[in-house]
């Protein structure tokens, strides 16, 4: 297993907090979908945090990150909404904010980058935050749980913590666009050929499946735009995964999860049946670390992952 994942040109200070490993205390931004239609993601994340021995402190007054759609009307609004979230984190002494959604990760990081690199924008944000007595000082770093797992916990430690190895379950990673692109915003690993999810799957005792669809788009943001298009994007990607022998999919993004889990059935008419069950990243990690399967909300998935888990002797 390679220990170095990181491209040499990655901006070091935007991904690492030297003290975070000791404090093990993180600001937690769950995002809207983990609180609405993917509650099983929220619950599994909290159960995983217990197993990892870290404290996730939810930013309960935080707003939506903008979800790439608020941007479509006005270039400033999402940035200032996120500045408000960062100000709350700072006020709580939590400058290390963890997300569990690829879209939140990308858009919160983009907003932060714009604020930190442009004084005018920071001034604009703070003049609005000032109306209700808040201020962002520019000290927050946003990371996805996936990056925190590898940077702070470490793959070696993760491997040692596994009590229920995945018995070679063939798992196809599906990253979700906004955790890798644009590279200048994320840059934690190569956007062309990321392998953090593969590394985590391998550490859990699964067999990662390499396929061309892993960095492609699930179509979530255009599901309602034109009939069949997003559905077909799901089918295309899942076809590639299935053809490479995948038995399941893992994703760090609840939006991808909604698309992959929800639309494979409808995509079958064009792409053939794939029926790949899709795990949220924290679900599969928490399972391998010993959280009981029935606590992970696997019964909420439209394509039930439990049959393949029985087949692989992971659950009874």
């Amino acid at each position, binding site marked *: 297993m390679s220990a170095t994942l990181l491209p040499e040109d990655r901006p070091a200070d935007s991904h690492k907090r030297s003290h975070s490993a000791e404090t093990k205390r993180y600001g937690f931004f769950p995002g*809207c979908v983990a609180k609405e239609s993917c509650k099983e993601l929220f619950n599994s994340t909290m159960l995983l945090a217990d197993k990892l021995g870290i404290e996730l402190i939810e930013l309960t007054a935080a*707003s939506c990150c903008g979800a790439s759609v608020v941007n479509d009307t006005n270039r400033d609004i999402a940035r200032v909404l996120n500045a408000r979230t960062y100000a709350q984190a700072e006020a709580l002494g939590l400058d290390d904010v963890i997300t569990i959604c690829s879209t939140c990760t990308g858009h919160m990081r983009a907003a932060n980058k714009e604020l930190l690199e442009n004084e005018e924008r920071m001034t604009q944000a703070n003049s609005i935050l000032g109306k209700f007595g808040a201020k962002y000082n520019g000290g927050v770093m946003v990371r996805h749980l996936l990056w925190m797992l590898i940077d702070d916990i470490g793959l070696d430690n993760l491997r040692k913590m596994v009590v229920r190895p995945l018995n070679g379950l063939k798992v196809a990673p599906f990253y979700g666009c906004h955790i890798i692109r644009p590279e200048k915003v994320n840059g934690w690993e190569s956007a062309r050929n990321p392998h953090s999810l593969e590394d985590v799957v391998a550490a859990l005792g699964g067999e990662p499946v390499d396929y061309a669809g892993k960095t492609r788009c699930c*179509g979530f943001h255009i599901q309602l735009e034109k009939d069949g298009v997003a559905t077909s*994007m799901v089918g295309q990607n899942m076809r590639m995964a299935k053809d490479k022998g995948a038995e399941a999919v893992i994703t760090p993004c609840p939006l991808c999860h909604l698309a992959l889990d929800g639309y494979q059935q409808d995509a079958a008419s064009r792409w053939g049946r794939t029926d790949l069950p899709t795990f949220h990243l924290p679900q599969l990690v928490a399972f391998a670390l010993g959280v009981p399967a029935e606590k992970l909300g696997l019964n909420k*998935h439209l394509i039930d992952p439990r049959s393949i888990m029985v087949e692989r002797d992971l659950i009874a």
Partner: protein
Amino acid sequence: MANIKLDIFRFDEAVDSVPHRDIVAVDVPETMTVLDALETAKAEVDGSISFRRSCRSAICGSCSMNINGVTGLACKTPCNTVMDEQGVIQVDPMPNFQPMRDLVVHMDPFWDKYTRLKPYLQPADKDEDHQTERRVSPEDMKKLVDVANCVMCATCYALCPVVSVDPSFAGPAAIAYAYRFIEDVRDSKREERLAQINEDYLWLCAHCYACSYCPKHVDPNDRIVDVKRATIKDRVMMNERGPRHALIVNKTVKQTGMLAETEVIQGTVGRFNFRGLLKVAPLGLRMAAKGKLPPPFVKPIPKVDEVRTIFDSLEVPVS
């Protein structure tokens, strides 16, 4: 010098029913570009290898192709950045296009979408009636210079996952080029242009940032967002799903601080669009059966007034 082995997609639509691959070895310095290696192969080994090229310096946009599965300009890609330990480099035609011969593809769909935009200046009056030069301030010109760098290499079009499943989508380059004229102060057809690009499925962009790999840093992804903002600002085709989706998301975030999924779905499809709602109903029922439906109403976050202050301060149109 390095021994580079080009693993080339070979196909001639006039004679072949299926493509095959040839491995062609050439000795070139490894700091030379993939295009240099291809030119050497054509000159020294096999004159029938076909590919488009002209300027050799990332200005003409002809030599876009897949290099180890990654779309980009062959003239801008040094061999030593892509070859493996054995010196092998795979070259294929751009995806999302019909192959014509080897690395040459049929570009017609790309050009069709581009010409539909009427990609030329259409001022309000004729040049002969216009007494002075048409002046553009430096600030106004600044908006256009990045897009003007587009060399129409079609890399973004080849990378676009939406084009790959639905060729009716205009694609990133065409939308970026529409922006170039929509935001040109000398042009008089802003409204028509916005309507046209909306009809060509502007809102079908999936926000995936695949086109952020533009070799000329045009960043079509950002220009697509600019055209959407212009659409909403000018209130063009506001009854279509794209603008409705953007506005309902803004509305629910302003009201509750959250993106309220149920309300967003109803607001985008149309609360009284029964046929549209029927189409999303089967998935809704499947989700309901699993206890996975998002809540009908979302409780506002603590201090939601602060969120409303942000919206009001920035005068976002929410209707």
